[in-house]
């Protein structure tokens, strides 16, 4: 029998307890929030929060910076919108169509991108996303500059009408929490430990016998799929899919959200998404300056504030979040 240091065990327990408390607080906040805050804003923020969590799965736990995540987000929203509007699929199947599209695209783009490391990985993902942006611009079914408009929200499982914001919000919260818990499960599984090992020292992981390329690809596809669920949900909520969601600026935005919240923290991307979406909504009057402000936040975060909001809190209280 191996003897385990009791102090270590309590530490692990305390760490996971801080996450549990934070999770319960988040759930409580999401239940109370629609009574005080405009639900459409909350749904937008939650879609981006899920998108950022998906992105964080790669950068935070495998150390891969994908600069083209708009590809999965945007194309999933196109396919979900198309499935709901043209094929007449119910919302749950429409979102799944989007997720499947993103998974497929993630498989193709991922298997190309993981052939190079580090900085090249970021450039390849960006270039592939730009290529698919041009496809979206030229393809017939995407509607070009107009996008796909007037997407019906439909009835969930043919029963629950999603047209009122209340039911739609409930569905978005359920999707978000399910994906959030799934990501949490993944990063704390043996598979997740291997991912972290790759992030820390890839040659060492290889020498231990792990086929790191395969792990990276699976993580990439997972991340793309989750980004696709976020994009598909957003298309159903806002009843539109447009070029904005496949543009490189969107890829930059999800990086910014994750960076502001804290790379490699569980709750960081959620906090970051709410901060950035709130900024975009409330600073709307500043119009073009929003881009400049985003740029400034990037610079400030990288130079002075690399842990991000949640990372700083976790560091200050010496807990894991």
């Amino acid at each position, binding site marked *: 029998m191996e003897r385990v240091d009791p102090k270590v065990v309590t530490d692990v327990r305390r760490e996971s307890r801080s996450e549990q408390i934070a999770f319960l607080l988040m759930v409580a906040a999401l239940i109370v929030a629609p009574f005080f805050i405009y639900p459409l804003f909350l749904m937008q923020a939650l879609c981006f929060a899920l998108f950022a969590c998906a992105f964080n799965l790669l*950068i935070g736990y495998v*150390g891969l*910076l994908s*600069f083209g995540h708009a590809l999965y987000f945007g194309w999933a929203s196109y396919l979900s919108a198309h499935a709901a509007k043209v094929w007449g699929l119910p919302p749950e199947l429409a979102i799944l169509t989007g997720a499947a599209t993103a998974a497929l695209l993630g498989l193709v783009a991922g298997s*190309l*991108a993981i*052939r*190079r*490391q*580090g*900085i*090249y990985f*970021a*450039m*390849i993902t*960006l*270039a*592939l996303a*730009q*290529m698919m942006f*041009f*496809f979206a611009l*030229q393809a017939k079914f995407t509607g070009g500059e107009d996008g796909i408009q007037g997407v019906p929200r439909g009835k969930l499982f043919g029963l629950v009408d999603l047209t009122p914001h209340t039911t739609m919000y409930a569905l978005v919260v359920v999707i978000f929490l399910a994906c959030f818990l799934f990501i949490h499960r993944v990063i704390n599984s043996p598979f997740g430990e291997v991912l972290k090992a790759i992030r820390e020292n890839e040659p060492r992981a290889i020498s231990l016998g792990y086929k790191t390329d395969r792990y990276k690809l699976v993580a990439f596809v997972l991340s793309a799929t989750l980004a696709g669920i976020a994009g598909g949900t957003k298309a159903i909520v806002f009843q539109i899919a447009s070029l904005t969601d496949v543009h*490189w600026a969107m890829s*930059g935005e999800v*990086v910014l959200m994750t*960076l502001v919240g804290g790379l490699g923290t569980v709750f960081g991307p959620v906090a970051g998404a709410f901060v950035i979406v709130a900024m975009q909504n409330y600073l709307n009057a500043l119009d*073009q*300056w*929003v*881009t*400049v402000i*985003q*740029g*400034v*936040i*990037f*610079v400030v*975060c*990288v*130079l002075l504030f*690399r842990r991000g909001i949640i990372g700083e809190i976790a560091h200050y209280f010496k807990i894991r979040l």
Partner: protein
Amino acid sequence: MFDIFGIPSQALFGQLLLGLINGSFYALLSLGLAVIFGMLNIINFTHGAQYMMGAFAAFLLLNNTGIGYWGALVVAPILVGIVGIIIERTMLQWLYKLDHLYGLLLTFGLALIIEGVARNYYGSAGLPYAMPDSLRGGQNLGFMFLPNYRAWVIFASLAICLSTWFVIERTRLGAYLRAATENPTLVRAFGINVPRMITLTYGFGVGLAALAGVMAAPIYNVSPQMGSDLIIVVFAVVVIGGMGSIMGAIVTGFGLGIIEGLTKVFFPEASNTVIFVIMAIVLLIRPAGLFGRRA
């Protein structure tokens, strides 16, 4: 007039020329990226914005101080290069010990700032920049019409690329640079001021981008987003060529420009995406890039 593969030669050579022009800019920009990456280990996402700054500098010099094209060709790269040096001294230098990714993120943020500010003051529409009088007109080569300005751009960028290659690969200064890329600590031990060399390298790379911007101003309009559209293509060029070799960056830049031009003739729908498709194919066949060494 004669046809080649059913395409009028005029159209074919016209697109080839356009391809060579685009290739000149790809080569100049990917060269700058490669030089900066070699010394700083940072992918300079601001490169596109700095190219745009070069074009805007030329525009502002002409309209506010009356300095024309030839003056701008010298002054604009120096001005933008100085801005680059300030950026390196105040921001980039704190990131060298961190993961490469932070350099990319910081320069991406800077690109957003520069582009956003330009858009706020000058709008998204392009501003026209007049061609210098001395380069108006063109030559009739019999099989096609060659505008003087385009011939000049191709000639000038080839000359700049080759002299950069010569300086880095064949002179003592270049030897110091290459040595400092390999092992900065050892080179410092020989009494060479490596941090200053890094700063000047960044300034030089940024200056190259601005120079490309000045040359682009009379061909494309001067507009805030001219850089961001281009830089992503240049990233693909860099992935294809690999950043290990200066000559590789030049050859890949021009070569891909020509391929893009030909695609416009034979399969116009794919002209926006052909470079990305080539990138995907190269990744499948030679993951390290055409001129890259396996890391």
